[in-house]
């Protein structure tokens, strides 16, 4: 079966075709990062305006790449939430109408389930059960994953997401928007430890996080301005503080669940320092770490198509009457497993 995936929950438009027999056939992403740069952040209305221009051109690209025709599509999966309401609605309207016109099921997919299952698209996919660290600009969560649709929330950020803390701190350091990756590059040239930032909630007994205080600590240090070398050292220390807490809590979660596999997903999962520390500290504990391919760390249609395929195979899809709803706020733990 061939499943089309449509992702439009924030500032990336992603379309992909996944075959249940042949795997991922094609995926294409248009990032709006450049467009939002001038505004210092994602402008939801502009994001929506861009999504609606990109859907069909991207669909044509993936059909070409997969050497498929639109009539080969057996189901249309799309991100129904969580995310920006206006942006979600664009993808949902298009996907639902396309599914109806092709006479195939439309499958509303949870964006985080997409990220959560994206490492299963890698060459050596992990087996269930595993612990997942979802870490992006919008989310920082630890989940116990027993199978498709069987997710238990173990802990999450009580304030800023880790990626959000990266972006906000980057702004404080004058690195523009979105500064997360720029901050990571700057950190690579600096020395952690010269400044000392707190490790928020490192020793609490739960698996929750808090990152907003770090940003405030950086603000205090930046104060009257910093020399370039100092900025690099501060960036390095910031990155060290965030990764130390993420690594410690993620590995603790794996041990608490008596498991030996950790899956890392979401945009911050592309951070090299985080990967280094997870790999070395995980190896010491005999915990194997799985990552999605780098191109699937950010938002994409492939993970949505893949989730759709899992759900389609697990359960008979209902009759398509065309009514749909998006869920800008949608806790992942509310998902139910396909029976």
């Amino acid at each position, binding site marked *: 079966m061939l499943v089309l995936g449509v992702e439009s929950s924030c500032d990336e438009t992603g379309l992909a075709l996944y075959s249940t027999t042949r795997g991922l056939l094609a995926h294409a992403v248009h990032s709006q990062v450049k467009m939002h740069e001038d*505004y210092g952040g994602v402008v939801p209305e502009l994001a929506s*305006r861009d999504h609606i221009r990109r859907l*069909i051109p991207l669909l044509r690209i993936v059909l070409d790449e997969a050497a498929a025709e639109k009539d080969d599509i057996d189901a249309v999966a799309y991100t129904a939430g969580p995310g920006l309401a206006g942006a979600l609605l664009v993808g949902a309207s*298009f996907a*639902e109408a396309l599914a109806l*016109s092709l006479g195939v099921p439309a499958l509303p997919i949870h964006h985080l389930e997409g990220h959560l299952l994206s490492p299963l698209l890698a060459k050596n996919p992990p087996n269930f059960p595993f612990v997942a660290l979802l870490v992006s600009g919008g989310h920082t969560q630890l989940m116990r994953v027993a199978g498709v649709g069987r997710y238990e929330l173990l802990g999450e950020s009580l304030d800023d997401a880790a990626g959000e803390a990266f972006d906000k701190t980057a702004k404080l350091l004058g690195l523009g928007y979105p500064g997360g990756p720029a901050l990571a590059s700057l950190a690579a040239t600096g020395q952690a430890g010269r400044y000392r930032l707190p490790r928020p909630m490192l020793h609490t007994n739960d698996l929750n996080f808090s990152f907003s205080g770090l940003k405030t600590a950086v603000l205090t240090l930046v104060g009257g301005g910093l020399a370039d070398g100092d900025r690099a050292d501060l960036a390095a220390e910031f990155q060290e503080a965030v990764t130390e807490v993420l690594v410690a809590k993620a590995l603790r979660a794996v041990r608490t669940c008596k498991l030996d596999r950790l899956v890392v997903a979401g945009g911050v999962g592309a951070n090299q320092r985080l990967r280094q520390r997870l790999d070395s500290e995980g190896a010491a504990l005999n915990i194997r770490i799985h990552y999605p391919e780098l191109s699937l760390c950010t938002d994409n249609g492939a993970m949505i198509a893949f989730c759709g395929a899992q759900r389609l195979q697990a359960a008979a899809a209902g009759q398509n009457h065309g*009514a749909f709803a998006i869920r800008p706020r949608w806790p992942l733990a509310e998902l139910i497993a396909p029976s």
Partner: protein
Amino acid sequence: MKILGLETSSRRLSVALWLDGRLLERGGDYPNAGSEYVLPWAVELLAEAGMALGDLDGIGVGAGPGGFVGLRLACGIAQGLAFGLDLPVVGVSTLEALALAAGGARVLACTDARMNEVYVAAYEIHDGMPETIMAPGVFPPERVPVPPGSGWLGAGEGFSVYGERLHEALGTTLTAVSADVWPTAAAVARLALPRLARGEGLDPALAAPRYVRDKVALTTAERLARGGVR
């Protein structure tokens, strides 16, 4: 020709099916709930007509101006249906649809653009087809442009929200006002018909909302220039 019309630019949503001269329509007052109704209405109308989606010749969509979210709902649905069915799409001005639905000979169509502004355009209707006298624009109510001559019917929600402020600008230009008139899918389908018949339908990838209000955010540089903070 068999045309599906979609109009969700205001709180009055509607879907219409034009069948070689016969019109079927579904609609209602459902603010922010278009996703639940629009496609099911289309399916119902087709069933009522004993037709399949594949029997359609084209899609007409109320392209704007109007509520941004609603414009994209109809446009996204039109794109999806038209791509799946290999159909052309015609975007119709919602103010033109409103003018046609209002039923006058000279209509000043005016809808609420929020933020203390209105969308406004003027049309003369000849043989059931509007001719544009003033193209759609967005203005504060007291500064709407005045159409030439007299005998104009003011139509649309703009008059119920900003009635007094509009009258200030329009004076005696208007001879009557119908505030409770809305763009309808039936009018959209009627307006799309000759354009589709002339082969003016677009590839669905080119179907796009016409927002009219194009400036929706300030860049960081603009905010700073206005004394804002980073």
